[in-house]
């Protein structure tokens, strides 16, 4: 077997490695249900005052949403038309070439209304 640069040794590491294998289906880092980023799950339809205001790692901790997180927070069932194309009815495939926003954001393109 080819020697790998990085080998998971204990069970927890294997779980993380397994998650890496599924990365293509994963969403944005920090959005997965079992990822704990210290950030609130929220949207403007839920009135979370100040939830995008603190970029510092101090109290109130995680009181901000990174741009990567912001991206998918503002699509799907959430509604923020200024930021993302409507990917529910008109452009359902819009994000398909962008499986992980922090890596693939360059692949996102404009939506031209015909």
């Amino acid at each position: 077997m080819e020697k790998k640069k990085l080998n998971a040794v204990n069970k927890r590491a294997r779980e993380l490695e397994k998650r890496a294998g599924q990365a293509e289906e994963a969403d944005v880092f920090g959005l997965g249900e079992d990822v704990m980023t210290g950030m609130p799950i929220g949207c403007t339809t839920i009135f979370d005052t100040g939830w995008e205001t603190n970029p510092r790692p101090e109290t109130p901790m995680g009181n901000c949403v990174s741009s990567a997180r912001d991206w998918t927070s503002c699509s799907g069932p959430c509604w923020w038309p200024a930021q993302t194309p409507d990917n529910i009815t008109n452009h359902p495939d819009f994000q398909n070439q962008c499986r992980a926003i922090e890596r693939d954001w360059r692949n996102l393109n404009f939506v031209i209304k015909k």
Partner: protein
Amino acid sequence: MPRYKLTDARIFPVDGHAYLFLTEENAIFEMDAELEAFVREAQARAPLPWDGLLARLQGDAAQKRDLLDLLLRGRILVPEQAVSSGAAFRDAAEIDLPLQTLVLHVTEACNLGCLYCYHGPCGQPAGPKRSMRLPVARKAVDFLFAHCADLPEVVVVFFGGEPFLNFGVIRDVVGYAREKAAAKGQRVQFAVTTNGTLLTPEIIDFIHANQLGVTVSLDGFERIQDRYRPFPDGGPSYRVILPGVRRLLAQPLAKPAVARVTVCRDPSAVPQILDHLLALGFAEAGFAPVTSPDPEYQLDADGMQALLETFRLLAEKFLEFARRDEFFGFTNLVDLLVTLHEGEVKNYPCGAGLGLFAVAPDGRLFLCQRLTGEASLAMGDIHRGFDRPRIAAFRKKARLSEKTACGTCWVRKICAGGCYHEALVREGGVQQPNLHYCEWIQRWIETGIQVYGRLASSQPEYLDKLSLLRGHGAPVQPLL
């Protein structure tokens, strides 16, 4: 452009292998030399954007991309703004956890007068010692089964005092709990912690018949046992206990018996004590420094250092056994290796107040067996039920994220602040972190990682076997 930093991690070089320990995840990875250099550099430098990271790796573009992806998904590299997930989302404070283990304090009475006992000197009259009556004990079993949801298995532990002073209740409760379990389609396991004075043939037969897990509190050979664990009148206990212990260990037990040793004053004797107890036939022996507010018995800094050195010697011996695929029953190390192997992340130091509670003879519920009777820590009772607001308040304050002193400690997700009872005695409150032994725990876990790394590189299947021995994964024949 997003930048990435190395997550909070430590590198352990072990026998030419480099291991990366992620403190937030308790994950352990092995790295090759090239990746180690990359990680060390990442540790030292400011966060880098993706392209900067790629430029620092060798290999073709696809390999580099896969590796960076793995580092990111494995949470080894994290976005620069990522904060410690100390404030965990999945917060036990609000969750209705099933009750899995109930400790029955079947009696407060004890027939020994151990000098360092945390229940106070029992040789002296300190009020009447209560025993649990049968209706209360049965009600406690009802309570366990009413609150265990659909767990496949529950555990009843008999504790005291000396629990076998109330053997009649134990015998009845075991039968009663079996009936309840059978009716509900669940399994029930039993465990008992005893001082070994009452191991009569009748009790030993009962232990075998019902597969009780037995822990004997025993401090080692005659001189030490008789000095610290005498009868209340000061009479020696070793020779009284020995025949019963030999009888107990004469035949293989369904659950291997373990000895539990309290270490005070003289840690240098630990290796001989361990040899002695294993020679008697115990499967394992575990050692804990005494929990006592009395400096007379506490291990001082030199004593703790000596204990660590002794533990390290025993770890070497453990490795020698492991090399021959044999087992050396040094509980402390086995537990630590299994903890490392499983990589379980702890936000609480133990299950007390989560899935484990203790019942006092009067039916009141407490956090654990050691804290039974601490009126300020009562968590309801088995008649009226859990005091939910109190439990929620306890869980909220006891979780790791509340222990600011632990915030930057690299073993925080293993230790989580340490024993509540020890913290009450030494630090003044159950929710305080045990700052008096921080450094000790860190060095002991570091020793554990050294042993772990050596086994992981040469015989990883041995680590799997240890995990199985502790009940992780599929049931197999025990190692012994």
